[in-house]
């Protein structure tokens, strides 16, 4: 058995979590104030994920279009996902939630717009 200290990133509260591990199996989580903290600790020790936020080009505009992954993706897929966004060009009109790129970096997760453009 060993313990690991983590900072929960689910919300701005930033709880200090202590995880007790038996090999790769999470035995106990303490320090969390909500169930999402426990889930975060388990995920972080087994398969860490992150929501990626970035931008893509918007045709005929001086401004970029902000986007995000529709759900968290594996941490190691962050850079491949960024590379995949390089060549994406979105076209107005765009609404929040519109899919800008399907199945980014073979994660099964779509990239969606986070801004409305008329």
């Amino acid at each position: 058995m060993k313990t690991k200290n983590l900072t929960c990133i689910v919300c701005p509260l930033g709880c200090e979590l202590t995880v007790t591990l038996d090999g790769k199996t999470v035995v106990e989580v303490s320090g969390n104030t909500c169930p999402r903290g426990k889930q975060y600790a388990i995920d972080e020790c087994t398969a860490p994920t992150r929501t990626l936020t970035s931008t893509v080009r918007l045709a005929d505009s001086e401004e970029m279009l902000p986007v995000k992954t529709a759900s968290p993706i594996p941490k190691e897929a962050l850079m491949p996902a960024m590379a995949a966004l390089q060549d994406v060009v979105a076209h107005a009109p765009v609404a929040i939630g519109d899919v800008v790129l399907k199945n980014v970096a073979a994660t099964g997760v779509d990239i969606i717009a986070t801004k409305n453009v008329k």
Partner: protein
Amino acid sequence: MKQVDLVIIGGGPAGMAAAVAARENGLEDILIIERDNALGGILRQCIHNGFGLHRFGEELTGPEYAARYETEVEALGIPYLLNTIVTAITPDRVVTAMNSEDGVFSVQAKAIVLAMGCRERSRGALNIPGNRPAGVYSAGAAQKFVNMKGYLPGRKVVILGSGDIGLIMARRMTLEGAEVQAVCEVMPYSGGLQRNIQQCLKDFDIPLYLSHTVTEIHGKERVTGVTVSKVDEQRRPVAGSEMYFACNTLLLSVGLIPENELTKGADIPLDPITGGALVDESRQTATEGIFACGNVLHVHDLVDYVSEEAALAGKAAADYVLAGAAGDSPRRVIAAGAVRYTVPQTIRRTDKDVTVYFRVGSPCTAATVRVTCGDVELLKKKKPKMAPGEMESVTLKADKLIACSGDITVSVEV
């Protein structure tokens, strides 16, 4: 002169939330004046997530959070002017503004909500020796370049200051292909949220140097490197501790200052600690009919709290226009012990519960928060951990406030 019941200066999260609350409380005649080319304020460039957990119960990005309020402003048909800058306000609530279509014009308002937000502390405030090469940006300016314009301001980066904007930009520049070599923080602790230290620095193995600052900027035309030194308890550089980082960009994330030039111009008294106006529990300044909310009042860590505060100010402004002045003579709220400041700084009405927000001056553990009025203890609670970067609050019950008189002291003892 044009007459408007309520003029709101600034169309960011505070201005929009104040406008929506004022309309929902029965006020028809409202005008938002925004200097940028769209509503949304700084949220437009804050493309990262983490907004809205308190307000909407879900995690949104900055543009998504702003869009929620923009949609409400549009649905309620609240008028707003874009590309319009307010140049002066007077204590009797004349607002002078200008834009390229109408030129200079004045509006007589029955009430004003100040929602101008804050700006970044600049290099000039830091006294870093060296030339004035290109490549020194405030973190927010770099954020605008990257997130809105699609330009990367540099490829090898050092960041001074570990506030949230500095941390967020460390991650953002890294994702966009820049090499962030270090984040330096003059204080022995980070002013940013713990989650941002994890997901913006540790995730990308970016080192955080606490009690370190930039003591020289090298380069003539463009930054070529920076010297970073350790500092002692008085924040003085320690000789012999210098480290050299080759880089072409230095980002500064060294604090935010409420933007109160208009407020000062109207002789509205400011709190020297917050840099914002002195306000009562309704967020009315010492000048009747002029209210303030959001980062122009005090710098918030979460936009959710900005919206909450702005709704309070918007409602109070509507009540003021529709029902006239209310409240007794002000009772002061005094910050004591480890408490650095409180907002509000005065309480006038005691018929409702009042939430007092405060910050501590340095990190505290096993602290006791006490609120007293003379010999009467209004509230006492224990807090295992408090940090200057995280705003705290206490809610004072109306029945307890009515039962006592005189100044109220909020203290933190460790």
